[in-house]
């Protein structure tokens, strides 16, 4: 941060008069705004894409009226959500009821801060990046639980309870499945993890292909993360056909909108973590983006990162429109009886691999054999 501030002061001499902390603060606010704008745009467009994907999969059209091909539909939806009546049920716990959507949104949005969008492109390159993501996304569970409890509606309560049980359970396999990437990079910083996957092997430099255990890890992570973000087939907290709409059943207008936006935010975070930890992040096969002159390296890496992440988001949408929903006991069984033990075994496997082969991945081993 300090280096960034100093370089900013150097680039814009007019800032030199201001104290350093003020410039730092300005930088923080600015990057926060940029990330917020990105998050909101993604979440809006995400809702549109979701419906387009649904349209394709379900042999129907999807939005096609507002703007060319319906691309302005999400703006219309946004306006509609803002203008709709804001209802707080008479017997709800008004304070908690109103607080809940903010917690959920903040929990989801705060994770965007450390997403390594490109070479040097993240709002904050925290040295505890992954740890931070795991921590702040946990806010979501408090928000959802509050929403379910404060609504004073039994369906909402069931939804809230399901959400609490589900998110808390699946956080363990999610975290455990991400640790192999941390072990390989030797750092919790997402930028470091991405950098560790560069090199000369192109696609095969990715953690996904580092060793058999990381390959498996990726799928464990993706399954568990689907559950942590309440995506189908794990959308039990909402479970429209069982719990009517679950924890958000009493919410209207923009309060509902915040839950909705957070859901898309979570989808992106999951995809971004998968990209950063397993799919090489912003690394472009055979090109060293860091070495490109000027802004090009950042732009190229940004495009590649977003491309990979959006592809993952599309996969999530595809799964969402294909699979039915698990039952709550099956969900718990899957986490505690299968995913948790498997991720632990996997972690052990990765550790042993790193120990035995001195941290080298399969491509490196093959290369050293050939060379």
């Amino acid at each position, binding site marked *: 941060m300090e280096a960034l501030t100093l370089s900013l002061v150097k680039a814009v001499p007019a800032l030199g008069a201001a104290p350093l902390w003020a410039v730092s603060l300005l930088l923080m606010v600015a990057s926060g705004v940029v990330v917020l704008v990105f998050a909101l745009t993604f979440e809006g467009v995400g809702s549109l894409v979701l419906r387009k994907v*649904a349209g394709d999969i379900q042999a129907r059209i999807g939005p096609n009226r507002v703007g060319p091909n319906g691309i302005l539909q999400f703006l219309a939806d946004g306006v509609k959500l803002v203008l709709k009546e804001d209802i707080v049920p008479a017997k709800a716990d008004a304070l908690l009821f109103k607080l809940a959507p903010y917690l959920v949104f903040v929990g989801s949005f705060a994770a965007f801060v450390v997403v390594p969008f490109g070479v040097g492109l993240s709002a904050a390159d925290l040295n505890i990046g992954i740890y931070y993501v795991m921590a702040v996304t946990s806010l979501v569970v408090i928000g959802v639980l509050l929403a379910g409890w404060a609504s004073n509606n*039994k369906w909402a309560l069931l939804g809230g309870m399901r959400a609490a049980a589900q998110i808390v359970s699946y956080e363990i396999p999610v975290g455990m499945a991400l640790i192999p990437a941390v072990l390989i990079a030797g750092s919790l910083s997402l930028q470091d993890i991405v950098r560790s996957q560069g090199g000369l092997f192109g696609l095969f430099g990715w953690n996904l292909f580092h060793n058999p255990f990381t390959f498996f890890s990726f799928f464990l992570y993706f399954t568990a993360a689907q559950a942590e973000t309440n995506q189908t087939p794990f959308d039990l907290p909402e479970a429209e056909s*069982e719990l009517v709409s679950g924890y958000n059943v009493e919410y209207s207008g923009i309060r509902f909108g915040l839950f909705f936006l957070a859901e898309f935010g979570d989808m992106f975070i999951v995809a971004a973590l998968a990209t950063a930890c397993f799919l090489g992040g912003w690394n472009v096969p055979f090109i060293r983006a860091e070495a490109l002159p000027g802004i090009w390296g950042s732009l190229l890496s940004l495009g590649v990162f977003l491309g990979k992440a959006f592809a993952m988001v599309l996969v999530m949408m595809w799964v969402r429109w294909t699979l039915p929903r698990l*039952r*709550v006991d*099956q969900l718990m069984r899957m986490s505690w009886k299968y995913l948790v033990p498997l991720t632990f075994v996997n972690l052990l496997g990765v550790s042993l691999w790193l120990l035995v082969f001195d941290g080298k991945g399969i491509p490196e081993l093959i290369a050293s054999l050939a060379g």
Partner: protein
Amino acid sequence: MTARPEALPTQEMTINMGPQHPSTHGVLRVILTTDGEVVTRAVPDIGYLHRALPDIGYLHRALEKIGERVTYAQFMPFTDRLDYLAAMNCNCAWAWAVEKLAKIEVPERAEFLRVIVCELNRISSHLIAFGSYTADMGAFTPFLYAIRERERVNDLFEMICGNRLTYNYARIGGVSGDAPPGFLEKTKEFLDYFEPKIDEYNNLISYNKIFVHRLANVAVVPAAEAVAYGLTGPNLRGSGVSFDLRKDEPYSVYPKFDFKVCVGTGERGTLGDCFDRYMVRINEMRESVKIVRQALAMIPEGPVLAKVPRVFKPPVGEVYVRTECPRGETGIYAISDGSTNAFRLKIRTGSFVTMNIFEKITKGLMIADIVAVIGSFDIILPEIDR
């Protein structure tokens, strides 16, 4: 699931599932008593005096009473609303009953047309059963696929009788009109289009692991119990009982056709579970396709409506006619006192009888299973709350 240590007493909760609930297939109200997610008791509140309770059903329209008040022919449009997803079958059931009561001879072509529309309606009804069931299980896509196919059946029905939901085609003594030019060819085209789709459904969802796990071994109805509780149609056959009125008490021109009675086999779990009931419907669609194909090939020329006066007086007597509707036996019991309208009318429907066993088999299941049970019985509320 119900066993719990006494040291951890839990408070039971009463929840109304329905009448406004996306998965109660109409306006069913189920009063759930739950211990967390586990349902300790699920009482369907099907209204009217059927349970000797003073609350009137949400849908109740006193159809049977209306039937005693209007002439036999005038009651025909009310049967459309008996089961709005199988209006053709209900139409025909009424026609067959009155024709038997009044001893009216029906032209053979009319009977063939009736069988064709009844079987097409069975397909479209089972499509909704299949689609809404998958939607209940959280998979929305198959629902829209089912609707897509059903639209084509609706096109056919619109062609033949002008309606897309409350079809009103059967008449006492035949059908309202001959098949319009091109109808029979279009029906064949539909069958050719539709038959491969059944495999598509099976690939997409029927054997999906999650789907199977949600249905297999859930709410098992043993054969003896299914019979004892009076279950009929796919719900009875799902328990492995091979009983189909089209075969066992043949009516109309059904004996002319070669088809199989689909029964549950316990292929993915216990015989008589939700999956078996689901698969019976999927397989029955194939058999219906078979029947319609044969009917199209064998349909004779000739008139489609017997000469029946608009207002007629059947002789004094009574009749009970049972027909195989998509939701089980639809039986019409009518007593004639020799006047223009029935002296007494009682209608027996599949969904209503099915609700008898609901409370018994839902004990100890989870909330999500209740949805699975309602869907597997493929109930429709106008039949329950007539």
